[in-house]
């Protein structure tokens, strides 16, 4: 290393781990959007006013976007402290903590985690050990299982300081390459690493380089390497962060690449939507030039190479190689057929090699540490790591760097911690508009090029948008096709016309105006667009349609047949979110309005027509409506349970339900002459009987126990659902003419056959009462009891013997019922729950 670089490096090290304490704020675009600039400004002012020698440093983004702004504090010899969600008002406390070890230790108490040592991969910095009670950063759920290779410096160094980049081993790969390696041995090293293109297609990088080098040698003159930073996939922003947080890493990768491929010019094509990335890259280029690492006679050798920035102007198709080249040449970004490939005839007809930002960013590490080091991460066909952006419906959104081959499950439920108990994750969309939707049932799939392609999705640049029950998959497909129809450059017919035709059909489905034949047309259209389009954009544009049709067909069918959007997204296909989410589809807005007008009898009648058990359900329903209620945004969701109870209880108390019962009985259709048997007198059997008998059919319900009600009678404790209430509501069904046969468990084939022979239809409504157990050792020990059995004994008034100490395993409805019942039997109760307290249903935390 030259003397100049040595001096820069030393200055950087002094800043990072010298005698001066510092506090750093992660400032990427995400941080800025969340007030990181204000935090840094407040810290600077406070330190200046306090005449402190400590520094306030700007660093890149640490990747944990959901917890921005992120702040770290450093005192020599102590671990770094990591704070999340920091407000500017915290500045005085932070500044004070930098002053002495005592204050620092006090501050550690409210830190999120500590960093004792950081592996920059090209350098290690040991900060110190202390604060045993504090988890290390790796122990935080979000970082557990991550491997930071590409993001090794992000959030740790100042992206605008070449000194700091040098201090952590930056440019050591370049120096090694230029001073000790030949272009051929460099390509060999990249081959050893097994690195594949990180833009999504996964072409082996060494092969791309080899072809380019051979072409450049065969045709002397100008040749170009291009960094594709036109990250247009909505939902993906790792390239933005890689440039914003560590621009020198990209520059170093490109210089090494130019040396290996013999290129004379480099171009970084960045989206115009990323102004901060452009600004930092410009600064970094100027610094590299000044340090003699870029420009003429790099590191005092005969190697010349320079990099220019071109900012795109908002066209998704420019991510395609040939379109990108047209764009640089000053034309509209329309792709052209390949071959010739860019490596043969690219920019201005000269050999050109285009690689994605993250591909370039892996190069310095591969050269500095060797190809084998790199391939020790990931899987043999897909070595290394990949940065993914997990966004959408997960608790911890952010950038996650995973070794290839990690499962989707580990990322969605592990690092991102899922969505909690209130919402159910339905699937995720991988790879942007060219990718596909993967259902949560396939989350055990390892993430690598091949496995994702098998599912019909692609890795793409690594955007993962997680969706939950509130997202409609038809709408998702429509959204993506709308996007590509809009972004299609119009050059080839399949893509231009095909996408707009697909969009028409999808609009039809979303409006409830499509038929099943339309789905067939949609699929065949999708397949022909895939087969016949000119460029990658067109060939992959149908993926969202094909995958949603494959994995979420039931949603399409519901839109078409039932004219319902279960998620409550497609506006024409639901009345209100509460109505749409209610399994009975009760007219909730209707009875609320009647209630508001003080027409309590009418409100009760409207309720009763759809729900024969309003008083019971008002007490024990799962309340899907409350999970979707928009009132949530103002204060909290409307308490449908209480409203139901109020309606039913008041009506019963006033005795006014009888006239409404009579109305329903009078309205019964004339006898149809059809006989229907229902097996099971639980809520499902009772509702089926309620509806069918009003249609004039002759209904008999068979049940193995002594009374009707099923789980309502035998599972839910009386303090939650008084048995009288249930009994009263069942009388309506009896009054309507439904016959009950009790004490008749269905145990033999002959019994079933007799039932089938004697009836026009048999409905099996036996519920899901089977105990599955936990599958752990010790379950058969005496004293261990499944919740269902226990609750049944309680509801039969048997007062089961539980002793004085009870442990309940689980935290759901049955568990809480069991715990409260045991408490009432005089035991002291402990609940053991596998998830964190924060993940528990709010209303239950009250009991603990």
């Amino acid at each position, binding site marked *: 290393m030259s003397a100049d670089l040595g001096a820069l490096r030393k200055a950087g090290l002094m800043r990072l781990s010298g005698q001066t304490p510092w506090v750093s704020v992660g400032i990427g*675009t*995400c941080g*800025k*959007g*969340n007030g990181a600039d204000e935090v840094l400004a407040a810290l600077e002012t406070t330190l200046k006013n306090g005449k402190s020698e400590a520094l306030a440093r700007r660093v890149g983004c640490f990747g944990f*976007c*959901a917890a*921005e702004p992120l702040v770290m504090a450093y005192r020599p010899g102590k671990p770094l402290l990591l704070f999340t969600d920091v407000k500017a008002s915290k500045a005085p406390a932070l500044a004070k903590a930098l002053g002495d070890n005592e204050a620092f230790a006090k501050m550690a108490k409210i830190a999120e985690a500590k960093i004792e040592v950081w592996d920059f991969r090209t350098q290690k910095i040991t900060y110190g050990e202390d604060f045993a009670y504090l988890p290390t950063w790796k122990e935080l759920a979000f970082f557990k299982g991550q491997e930071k290779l590409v993001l090794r410096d992000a959030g740790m160094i100042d992206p605008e300081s070449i000194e700091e980049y040098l201090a952590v081993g930056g440019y050591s790969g370049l120096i090694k390459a230029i001073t000790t390696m030949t272009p051929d041995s460099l390509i060999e090293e990249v081959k050893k690493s097994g690195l594949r293109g990180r833009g999504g297609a996964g072409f082996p990088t060494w092969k791309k380089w080899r072809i380019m080098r051979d072409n450049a040698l065969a045709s002397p003159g100008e040749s170009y390497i291009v960094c594709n930073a036109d*990250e*247009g*996939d*909505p*939902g*993906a*922003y790792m390239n*933005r962060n890689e440039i914003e947080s560590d621009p020198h890493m990209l520059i170093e990768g490109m210089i090494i690449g130019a040396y290996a491929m013999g290129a004379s*010019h480099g*171009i970084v*094509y960045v*989206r*115009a*939507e*990323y102004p901060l990335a452009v600004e930092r890259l410009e600064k970094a280029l100027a610094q590299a030039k000044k340090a003699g690492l870029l420009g003429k006679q790099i590191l005092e050798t005969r190697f010349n190479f320079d990099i*220019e920035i*071109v*900012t*795109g*102007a*908002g*066209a*998704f198709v420019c991510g395609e190689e040939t379109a990108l080249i047209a*764009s*640089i*040449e*000053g*034309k*509209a*970004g*329309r792709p052209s057929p390949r071959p010739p490939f860019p490596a043969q005839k690219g920019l201005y007809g000269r050999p050109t090699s285009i690689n994605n930002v993250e591909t370039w960013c892996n190069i310095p590490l591969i050269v500095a540490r060797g190809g084998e080091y790199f391939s020790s991460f990931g899987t043999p066909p897909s070595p290394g790591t990949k940065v993914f*952006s997990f*966004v*959408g*419906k997960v608790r911890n*959104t*952010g*950038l996650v760097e995973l070794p290839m081959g990690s499962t989707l499950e580990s990322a969605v439920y592990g690092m991102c911690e899922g969505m909690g108990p209130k919402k159910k994750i339905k699937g995720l*969309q991988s790879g*942007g508009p060219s990718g596909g939707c993967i259902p949560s049932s396939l989350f055990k799939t390892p993430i690598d090029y091949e496995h994702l392609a098998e599912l019909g999705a692609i890795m793409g640049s690594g*955007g993962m*948008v997680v969706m939950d029950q509130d*997202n409609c998959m038809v709408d*998702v497909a429509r*959204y*993506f096709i*709308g*996007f590509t129809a*809009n*972004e299609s*450059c119009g050059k080839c017919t399949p893509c231009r016309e095909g996408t707009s035709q697909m969009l028409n059909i999808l609009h039809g489905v979303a409006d409830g105006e499509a038929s099943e034949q339309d789905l067939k047309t949609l699929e065949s259209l999708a397949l022909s667009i895939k087969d016949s389009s000119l460029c990658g954009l067109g060939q992959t544009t149908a993926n969202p349609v094909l995958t949603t049709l494959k994995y979420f067909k039931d949603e399409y069918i519901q839109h078409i047949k039932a004219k319902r959007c279960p998620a409550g997204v497609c506006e024409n296909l639901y009345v209100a979110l509460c109505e749409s989410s209610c399994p009975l589809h009760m007219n909730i807005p209707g009875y609320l309005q009647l209630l508001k007008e003080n027409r309590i009898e009418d409100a009760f009648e409207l309720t009763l027509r759809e729900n024969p058990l309003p008083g019971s359900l008002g007490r024990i329903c799962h309340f899907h409506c409350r999970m979707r209620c928009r009132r949530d*945004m103002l204060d909290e969701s409307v308490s449908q349970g209480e409203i139901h109870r109020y309606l039913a209880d008041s009506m019963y108390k006033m005795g006014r339900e009888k006239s409404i019962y009579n109305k329903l009985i009078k309205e019964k259709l004339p006898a149809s002459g059809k006989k229907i048997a229902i097996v099971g007198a639980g809520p499902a059997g009772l509702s089926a009987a309620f509806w069918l008998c009003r249609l004039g059919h002759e209904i008999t319900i068979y049940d193995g126990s002594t009374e009707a009600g099923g789980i309502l009678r035998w599972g839910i404790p009386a303090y939650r659902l008084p048995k009288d209430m249930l009994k009263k509501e069942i009388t309506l069904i009896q009054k309507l003419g439904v016959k009950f046969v009790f004490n008749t468990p269905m145990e033999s084939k002959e019994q079933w056959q007799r039932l089938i022979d004697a009836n026009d239809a048999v409905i099996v409504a036996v519920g899901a009462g089977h105990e599955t157990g936990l599958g752990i050792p010790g379950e058969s020990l005496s004293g261990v009891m499944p919740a269902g059995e226990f609750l049944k004994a309680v509801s039969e008034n048997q007062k089961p013997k539980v002793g004085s100490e009870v442990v309940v395993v689980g935290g759901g409805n049955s568990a809480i019922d069991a715990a409260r019942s045991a408490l009432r039997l005089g035991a002291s109760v402990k609940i053991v729950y596998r998830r964190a307290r924060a993940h528990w249903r709010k209303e239950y935390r009250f009991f603990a």
Partner: protein
Amino acid sequence: MPSTAVAQKDGDLKHIILENRDKQGYLLKILEKAQETSPKLYLSEETMREVAHRLDIPLTQVYSVATFYSFFNLKPQGLHSIVVCRGTACHTRGSLALLNEALSMLGIKSFKEEEENSVTSLDGFASVRTVACFGQCALAPVVMIDGEVKSRMTIGRLVTLLHKMKKGG
């Protein structure tokens, strides 16, 4: 007033063209800078003619580029700008409702996202546009108001911000 602004702009344009004509991606660079420095942030017909003339390229090429990329405005823009991100993460977190709210608050009747890049209120007070993705997906939904990105936007907050803008705050 208008005449000096135009004169100033002419000077700028000559300078912009001279400075960038030999760079990679020269036409994009020149058009981007020309739009940036134009008082109403758009590319007028004269600007495009001038660029074609000075670069000695066909006007059709300039027009083709200016109409291809969504970044370029061919109509004068409003005093304020509201950009609603329509990326996937923002979409799944309700950005369409935000877009509709912004339009209705500015009295803009309709905006066909798939046909035009931006729409300006009749009084020229503000322009609303959409963008494919800001890359701020973790903090979705995102809206940019006068160049400042606001994350985790809600309809309530948007209404407050637009009221403030209307009052000149």
